């Protein structure tokens, strides 16, 4: 599903990624762990096509995304990637339903079709009753479930999660962990960047430990 070959990312003289090679198989759940500044989030940005490596290649489902232009990358993100953020990154001006539908609408999906899919996801994530609420009135756990629903809207091959439980209390964190586990069990490929060992232990098939921009260890469960 994902192959990184000798990926380097340098900011001036600092190497955020110092020659990382990593494979993620379809249906696998991989947790990337490490201290702050170890390069975890940079790795996620490379795979999401939000940032470009200084050298090396990132191939997702057979496509080398390092060769893509900005518009191609945008299309790649729409079709192949779903992203879940630590701070949710919902649009405050839009109600829950519109936030979730947005990903499909940017793809050109007709409104009715997008609405049906969004309602289906909100139902599955048990948050359909909050569809008309604005993000500002939701709890952290609810917001993250909306974020997950939005990420799954276009049926992505790969779900990338950046500290998905980082801004949640333990109860809400548990709910999100269950959610991710359920998704993986029905075949969703996951790549999770986290500090949360419980999340890694519970959800990931494999844990990749990062240190100073390179893979320090890999543990397969």
């Amino acid at each position, binding site marked *: 599903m994902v192959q990184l070959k000798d990926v380097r990312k340098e900011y001036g003289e600092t190497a955020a990624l110092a020659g990382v090679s990593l494979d993620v198989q379809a249906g696998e759940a991989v947790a990337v762990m490490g201290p702050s500044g170890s390069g975890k989030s940079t790795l996620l940005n490379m795979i999401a096509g939000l940032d470009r490596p200084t050298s090396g290649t990132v191939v997702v489902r057979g496509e080398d995304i390092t060769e893509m232009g900005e518009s191609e990358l945008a299309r790649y993100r729409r079709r192949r990637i779903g*992203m879940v953020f630590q701070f949710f990154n919902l649009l405050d001006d839009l109600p829950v339903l519109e936030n979730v539908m947005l990903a499909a609408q940017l793809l050109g999906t007709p409104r009715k079709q997008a609405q049906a899919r969004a309602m289906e996801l909100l139902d599955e994530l048990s948050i359909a009753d909050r569809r008309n609420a604005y993000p500002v009135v939701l709890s952290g756990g609810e917001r993250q479930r909306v974020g997950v629903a939005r990420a799954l809207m276009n049926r992505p091959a790969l779900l990338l999660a950046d500290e998905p439980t980082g801004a949640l209390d333990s109860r809400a964190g548990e709910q999100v962990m269950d959610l991710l586990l359920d998704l993986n069990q029905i075949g969703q490929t996951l790549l999770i960047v986290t500090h949360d060992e419980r999340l890694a232990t519970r959800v990931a098939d494999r844990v990749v430990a990062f240190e100073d921009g390179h893979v320090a260890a890999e543990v397969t469960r």
Partner: protein
Amino acid sequence: MKAVWQAAQFAVRRRKLQTSIIALVLLLSTATVVLALGLLVTVDGPYDKAFAQQHGAHLMVSYDPAKATAAQVAASASRPGVTAAGGPYRSQIVNVPETGGTEPGMLPPGPLTVTERTGRGDDPVDRLTLKSGRWATAPGEIVLGSGYARFPFDPTGRKVTFSGGHTFTIVGIGRSITRSAEAWVAPGQLSAPDGLQMLYRLADPAAPAGTITAGLPAASSQSYLASRQQATEAGKVAIPFLVAFGIAGLVVAVLIIGNVVSGAVVSGFRHIGVLKALGFSPTQVTGVYLVMVTAPGVLGSLAGLVIGNVLAGVVTTTLGDSYDLPTASGVSVWVDVLAFAGVLAVVVFTALVPAVRAGRIPAAVAVSAGAAPGRGRALRVQRALARTRLPRPVSLGLGLPFARPGRTAMTISAVAFGVAAVTFAAGLDRSLNSYLADAELTETVHVVVPIDDRRPISLEGRPGTAKVALTRFDQVHVPGFDRAVHMKAYQGDIGDRHGHRMVHGRWLAAPGEAVVGDPFLKTSGKKIGDTVVVTKDGRKATLRIVGTALVDGGDSVLTDWASLNSLGDRKTTPAAPASAGPRTGMVTSFLEVTLTPGTSPKDYVAALKADGVEADTAAEGIEPGQVIVLGLIALLTLGLAAVAALGVFNTVILNTRDRARDFGVLKSLGATPRQVLTVVLASMAALGLAGGLIGLPLGVVAHHLVMPAMADTGGIVLPYGLMEIFPWPLMVLSVLAGIAIALLGALIPAGRAARIRTAAVLHSE
């Protein structure tokens, strides 16, 4: 204070772009204000100054020498109210013949007043000055007035012969601030003086002539106000619209500065919090924000002063050259001081409200918020837009302005002023062109064929000919005018208006009637229904004024064929052809040809020339003053539209900064750069449309207020139709100009938003 200064410097460095915008906006505003104020003062100032220096005459009277002696006339100098007097000077109205006497093009044919006088530095009234050469002291010498004739060469040494065969050699060019004569000769050189000219300075400059001339045979009199009006009206015509532009420029500057400063407060919440955490008092925080705006404002205003002075200098000098203002100088220092202080006061006042607001924000709120609250507004609008069939980036963009209504209102206002300026300028341009078309008959007269009485030309039935009118011109003298008056008549049906647009009264219906331009009434002090006596080579005609029309030159007279011919010895119809062909420049009779639709005037003229007939396309003459006014309109419109676009630019910078995270989210969801661009441009297009819809009526109203004021200053009364020059396509274009201004201002920051580094903005959360 040092801390405030340092913090302000830091804030300025962080906001280089917005700092530049403030500087640029103030540059343009100050330049406009200086130009407007400068011209306002300059056109009046030099004349009054020169009038005082040269002891100009408040009243100029010509007495009939056949009915009073020089001694009797001179005694009027001691009448009550007269503080000083000059004269009597013998004067004569002489005539420059249409041909023969002078070199072609040297002097305009027609009458002029010549006075026997030598300029002396100690004359008590109307001290004459020499522009070049010397005064006439010997027989056969003449000095011409600089306001009478313009020479692209030095005319000294050339000869001029008047009707009657008297030849003079030009020895100098002089100037009278009172415009007391068009030429001067040495005492005793006039062969048949017809006037004794007295020049008076009065205790009450506005005192009626009758109090001085009572009991004396005054043939004509003229107040200095008439020559003052003639000397300054060209510059004054530009003032109403310059004032309008100056005010609009200041209002837009206020809007943009308010937007910039409140935007800086909104986006600088964390900065404010940090300042307060460091121990800055509310007053110091307010000071930081005031200095942040005032410093670039001072720089921009200083640059604006320089540019405004240069522009005002160019305009006044050009006007001076064009209209023979006594002296044309730049802007006086007090105008600079007033403009600089006024604009800066506006800046400080505008910045004060958001700056005080910044000072009052509690530190904890500022630090914890990181960005000002304000999201979540107008959610209903967003929801309603989401339900439309518009592409999602468009509906998202259209909803953005509702999140910050204050900023949106200021941006719409800036665009509205830009559109108002464009609409106003377009209207002004169309009115002026329409005026010229009506005054110069450019839509009625397409081809002009000069003829002389020896060779009649028939164009009737010629392909392309719709109508042919035989016209005749003459230069006549009218009391109260210091220059020859243009008189024109048409042969044939007296009731045919030949395309002239009436302003007041009616067209000619019987011989002995006249239709004049409104400036003629103003200068002569006449009104419709009055009679006026015109003279030419001793012949007189009395005409009754029955109406006013738009006429070329403003103070022209239109009369019937017989009345015009009664002043000369011409036949009433062209005579049989002679062997010689037409000689352009020697004739004052023309055929004015109206062509059938679709006929090219150039082709028609070419065909006539091929047949040996001299002809020309009717030229659209634009006077230097009009060129300056049109140039200023274009310049200031561009300036104001640019300032409005800068306002939009600033808003989009603020919006994209506020919305950076949202754009990052959109990109993370797969929005292409073009879709992000669409979001930003759609939001600004909506503002542009709103600004256009508001600016259009503003521009039309400004046109309806300023155009008549300009015309009034020039002594012209506009007919109603000249104000109704906004057809719907022009209105649509004006509204579209709002969208164009908005999109133009948004393009660069929108492009930046589209290229936003998603990872960075999402990570910064």
